[in-house]
C-alpha cells in the first residue's frame, strides 16, 4: 500500500508532460539527423561506388572512423573541441551535427549496397534503351536499390533514434535526460524509466509498422 501511495505522490501529471516534451525533442533531434544524415549518406555511398580507388582511399577510412568510435566519445570530443576552433554551439546543434555525421557514415555503406544490388547487366539494358546515366540512376537503380536496402536503412534510422539518448551527456533535455532529472527528484527510477521506454516505443513502433507495410506492398 505504502509504495503505491508514493507512486502517486512522487510522479505527477506535469511530469508526464515534461517527459512528453522531452520525447518531442528526441524526435526532433533524431528526425533532423536521420534526414540530413541519409541525404549525406546517399551522396557518400554514390561516391564510394563510383569513385572506386580514390574514394575508398580517402572517404572510406574517414567514414570507418565515425562508425567505429563510440558515439558518446564523439559527442564529448566535438562539444569540447568546437569552441577551440571558434564555433559556439549549443548542445542541440552539437548533438545534431555529430548524429548527422554518424548517420551518414552508417547510411553510406547501406546506400552503396543499394547501388550494388542492381545488377550490371540490368543497367546495361537501360543504357541500351537510350537512357542517360542519371535517367538510369533515377528510374531504374533508385527504385530497385531502395527496395533492397530499405530494411537495413530502417534499422539504421531506429538505431540512431535510440542512440540520440546519448546527447543527454551534453545537457540537452531529451527523453533520457528528462528521465534522469525526474528520477533524482522523485526517486522512482522504475516507473519513470518504464514511461520513458514506452515513449521510445511509441516513437519507433509506427516507423517499424509503416516500413513493414511498404515492404509488403513492394513484394507483391
Amino acid at each position, binding site marked *: 500500500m505504502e509504495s503505491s501511495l508514493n507512486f502517486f505522490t512522487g510522479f505527477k501529471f506535469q511530469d508526464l508532460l515534461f517527459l512528453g516534451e522531452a520525447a518531442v525533442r528526441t524526435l526532433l533531434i533524431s528526425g533532423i539527423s536521420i534526414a540530413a544524415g541519409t541525404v549525406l549518406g546517399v551522396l557518400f555511398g554514390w561516391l564510394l561506388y563510383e569513385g572506386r580507388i580514390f574514394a575508398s582511399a580517402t572517404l572510406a577510412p574517414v567514414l570507418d572512423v565515425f562508425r567505429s568510435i563510440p558515439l558518446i566519445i564523439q559527442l564529448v570530443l566535438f562539444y569540447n573541441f568546437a569552441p577551440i576552433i571558434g564555433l559556439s554551439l549549443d548542445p542541440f546543434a552539437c548533438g545534431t551535427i555529430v548524429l548527422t555525421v554518424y548517420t551518414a557514415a552508417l547510411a553510406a555503406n547501406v546506400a552503396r549496397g543499394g547501388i550494388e544490388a542492381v*545488377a550490371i*547487366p*540490368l543497367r*546495361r*539494358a*537501360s*543504357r*541500351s*534503351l*537510350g*537512357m*542517360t546515366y542519371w*535517367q538510369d540512376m533515377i*528510374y*531504374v537503380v533508385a*527504385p*530497385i536499390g531502395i*527496395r533492397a536496402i530499405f530494411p537495413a536503412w530502417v534499422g539504421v534510422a531506429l538505431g540512431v533514434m535510440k542512440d540520440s539518448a546519448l546527447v543527454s551527456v551534453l545537457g540537452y533535455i531529451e527523453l533520457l535526460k528528462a528521465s534522469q532529472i525526474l528520477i533524482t527528484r522523485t526517486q522512482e527510477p522504475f516507473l519513470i524509466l518504464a514511461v520513458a521506454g514506452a515513449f521510445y516505443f511509441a516513437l519507433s513502433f509506427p516507423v517499424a509498422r509503416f516500413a513493414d507495410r511498404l515492404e509488403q506492398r*513492394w513484394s507483391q
Partner: protein
Amino acid sequence: MIIVKELHKYFKDLHVLRGIDLVVEKGVVLSIVGASGSGKSTLLYCINALESIDSGSITVDGEDVHAKGTDINLLRRKLGMVFQQWNSFPHLTALENVALSPRIVRKLSRAEARDVAARRLEHVGLGDKLNSFPNALSGGQQQRLAIARALAMEPSYMLFDEATSALDPELVGEVLDTMRLLAEEGMTMICVTHEMGFARDVSDRVAYVHDGTIEEIGPPEQIFGEPNSEKTRRFLSKVR
C-alpha cells in the same frame, strides 16, 4: 547501314577483337556464330558503345559511334538490344517496363507511351500480360518483353546477344518465333546465336567468329553447306 572497320578491342592484356571488318546493310539478318569467348558479345557491345574500342571505327548510318562528339544516347535509340539475361525491370509491370524509355527518352506523353507499349506487347504476343509484373512471367515471356521494350524505341537495327541461351528448352521456340517474325517484317538484325537452325533458316548471312576475327562470312548455304575455311567446318561439325 552498320560498317565496322579494322576494329580492335582489348581487355587489359587480352586482345579480344583482332581486326573485325563487317558491313550490315539495311534489311539484312546477320547471324554470328562462334565458340564461347571468341568475342561475339564484345563485338555487339562495341556497336552500341556499351564497350569502348581501342582502334578502328564503327559507323551507324554514317555516324561514328565512338567519335567524341557523338550523342551516344541518341544513337542508341536506333540500336535495340536484347541480352542473354532478360533484364526486366522488376519493380514495373510489363506495360511500364516497355513504356518507361518512350516516356523519359523519347519524351512521349504518359498516354502515348502506354499506347506504344501496349501495341508492342501485343506484337510479341503479350497482349494479355500488360499488367503482370516480371516475376509472374516465364523466362520466354520476359525475353519477349525485352524484345517489346527494345522495339518501343523504334530502332532501325536490333542486336540480339544469345537471346535464347538462358531459357529452358521448351521456351526457346516462342522467342525464336518472335525473332523470325521481326525478320519477316524486314527488321535489320544482328543475332549472336547458338541456334544453328535459326541461323540457317532465318538469316541472309552468317558470320563465323574465331578468336576475335571473322573467319568466314557468307550466305547460310555456304557456311553450313560448303564452307571455305577448315576452321568453320570443324566448328560446325562440333556444334551439330
